[in-house]
């Protein structure tokens, strides 16, 4: 049976069909669903026929029902939106609109032409979307004020589905795009730039709370507290985003299971990327770089389990990956280049595998704080490896111990950092390499690669 209410007939819960559904189906589909419900009943269950017919039906429907409004800066935008009918399209012309908070409580399409500027002069938030099927495209939002009680945002979505936020510019706003208890939303091609002040006075660039099946792609966030923030978000995809120079984290998520992060670029964030308390995360082809500072990490993983971290690149971070309480996760084909620490694995991590990765030019390859190592390390390339390969199979014959003595000493006595790069330390590390005594016995790569892996 098909649903008659506002929600669309296709099933978004299958994430594979999810992105396609946005591109092939127009957002007014639910109108035609209402209008041609009877038609639907007569049609056989053949899905394709149904789609074809509804598309034709939609075209007829669109011409007769939805209207197109043109709005210029002289007209009050708020009234225009109130007067518009559901499924109307509003073309907002170029210009500066000084507005109050606008609540969108019916399905509308708002399209900005040449980036009209909506300025709220730090008084409130700009759009509060409370309806399904809303599209907001090509608008510049400015000057959302700061509050402690309510998180004011340029675009706030409350308990809605099928929201599309496309190609907007958001400048100097407390929160940028804020999705709350929503599902099946698309946030694409937005450019969110905050005015960096201290951490307390700025919100997140793209914020999602308790959402499901959302797609966030090709966005740029800069100068916010967290570039992208998720809490209780599930089955979502985050890809091709660029998050940089945020005050706290480039990406921050908690309790957000079954999400995928692909081809994102996180750099120069105050504390890098932090992800916590989550299961079934997939992170592939991301770049984490230049997160330098006393408390900065490329990627901080806290209580992450059953996850895949693959083909990412960690360059010039104070700590490439910091793992605490991580279980059953797979790290493979990653690049660790020129980090302070490539990996810091706390002893409470278990059953993780680290394979086929390159470690080059890191001050410390691996540091750990205990003697017990319950993780599996093999087939990595370590530039500090000095072993030999007699049978020429590309795999070193003696195991490599990535934890240096000095790294172990520092874990116990942080003050020993004072001796960084001194001759004594080099000598101690040499001795330890020949006769290992203090470094954890279990932390070794039995099959180190002789040559860097091509990743």
């Amino acid at each position, binding site marked *: 049976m098909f649903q008659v209410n506002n929600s669309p007939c296709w099933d978004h819960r299958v994430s594979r069909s999810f992105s396609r559904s946005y591109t092939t189906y127009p957002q007014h589909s639910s109108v035609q669903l209402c209008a041609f419900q009877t038609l639907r009943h007569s049609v056989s269950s053949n899905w394709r026929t149904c789609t074809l017919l509804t598309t034709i039906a939609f075209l007829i429907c669109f011409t007769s029902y939805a209207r197109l409004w043109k709005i210029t800066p002289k007209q009050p935008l708020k009234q225009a939106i109130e007067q518009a009918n559901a499924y109307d399209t509003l073309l907002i012309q170029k210009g500066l609109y000084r507005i109050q908070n606008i609540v969108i409580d019916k399905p509308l399409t708002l399209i900005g032409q040449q980036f009209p500027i909506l300025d709220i002069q730090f008084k409130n938030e700009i759009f509060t979307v409370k309806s399904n099927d809303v599209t907001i495209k090509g608008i510049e939002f400015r000057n959302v004020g700061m509050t402690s009680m309510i998180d004011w945002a340029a675009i706030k979505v409350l308990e809605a589905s099928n929201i599309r936020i496309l190609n907007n510019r958001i400048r100097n706003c407390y929160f940028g795009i804020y999705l709350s208890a929503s599902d099946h939303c698309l946030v694409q091609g937005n450019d969110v730039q905050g005015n960096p002040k201290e951490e307390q006075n700025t919100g997140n660039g793209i914020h999602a709370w308790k959402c499901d099946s959302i797609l966030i792609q090709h966005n740029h966030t800069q100068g916010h507290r967290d570039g992208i923030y998720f809490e209780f978000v599930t089955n979502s995809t985050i890809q091709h985003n660029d998050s940089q120079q945020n005050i706290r984290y480039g990406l921050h998520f908690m309790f957000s299971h079954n999400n995928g992060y692909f081809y994102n670029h996180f750099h120069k964030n105050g504390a890098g990327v932090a992800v916590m308390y989550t299961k079934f995360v997939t992170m592939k082809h991301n770049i984490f770089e230049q997160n330098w500072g006393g408390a900065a990490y490329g990627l901080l993983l806290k209580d992450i389990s059953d996850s895949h971290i693959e083909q990412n690149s960690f360059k010039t971070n*104070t700590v490439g990956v910091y793992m605490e309480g991580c279980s059953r996760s797979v790290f493979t084909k990653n690049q660790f280049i020129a980090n302070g*620490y490539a990996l810091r694995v706390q002893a409470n991590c278990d059953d993780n595998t680290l394979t086929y990765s390159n470690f080059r030019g890191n*001050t410390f390859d691996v540091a750990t704080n205990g003697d017990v190592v319950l993780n599996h390390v093999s087939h990595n390339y370590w530039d500090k490896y000095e072993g030999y390969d007699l049978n020429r199979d590309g795999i070193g014959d003696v195991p490599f111990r990535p934890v240096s003595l000095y790294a172990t000493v520092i874990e116990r006595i*942080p*003050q020993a950092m004072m*001796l960084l*790069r*001194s001759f004594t330390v080099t000598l101690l590390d040499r001795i330890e390499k020949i006769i290992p005594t203090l470094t954890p016995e279990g932390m070794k790569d039995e099959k180190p690669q002789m040559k860097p892996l091509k990743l």
Partner: protein
Amino acid sequence: MNKITKYVLYDIVRNRFVMGYTLLLLAISMSFFSFESDPNKGLLSLLNIILMVVPLVSIIFSTIHFYNSYEFIELMSAQPLSRKAIFLSEYLGVAASLSLAFLVGVGIPTLVFGGDQSSLILIISGLLLTLSFVSLAFLASVITRDKAKGIGLALVLWFYFSLVYDGLVLGILFSFNDYPLEKAMLVLTALNPTDLARIMVLMKMDISALMGFTGAVFQDFFSTNYGLLVALFVLLLWVVVPVSIATRIFQKKDL
């Protein structure tokens, strides 16, 4: 005094050893900078070499030179010249030649390839390190008349400052683990010129972020101009104090 310094300087500059030392430093710095694409990393590798080689060469060469020119010193002492003047001009001659070698060997390539604040600090601290180890060498040389003993003492000093001292610090850290040692570490650093030079340079680099809380305390200290001045002053003390003690001994010494 100037005349003697000039003679000593000419004598050393003509010496093949100092030429060799200059070329060695030049070769090392050039290779590091051309090897590493990032000048900062080249600087870091260079730092390791400087902390090892410069003190060693400075202290050994100065000691040997002092003993080799003993007859010259004796001859000069027969002239109507104060011993202080003879000794100090000898010191200045050796120090100037080695500093020149350092400036040509390390200074020029560093300024050409790096040229930021950290490379400047590297050059200044390397220079002061040279001076202080020459100074220590002169102290070692005046303590004993025996050349072998003198060189031995110089080697022990180098060994102590480059290796043993850090080992001792590590030992102190292990045994007083439970106490807040950050401030104490600052003092401990000041007691060794090589450590002081190393940390001064490290603090000017990215790598300082690695150093955690201790690093932060150091950073607070060294990043301010005041801290930097204090550090430079302490390094200067490491130059002045040994040589002034040596002068005092030399003045009273039975040649």
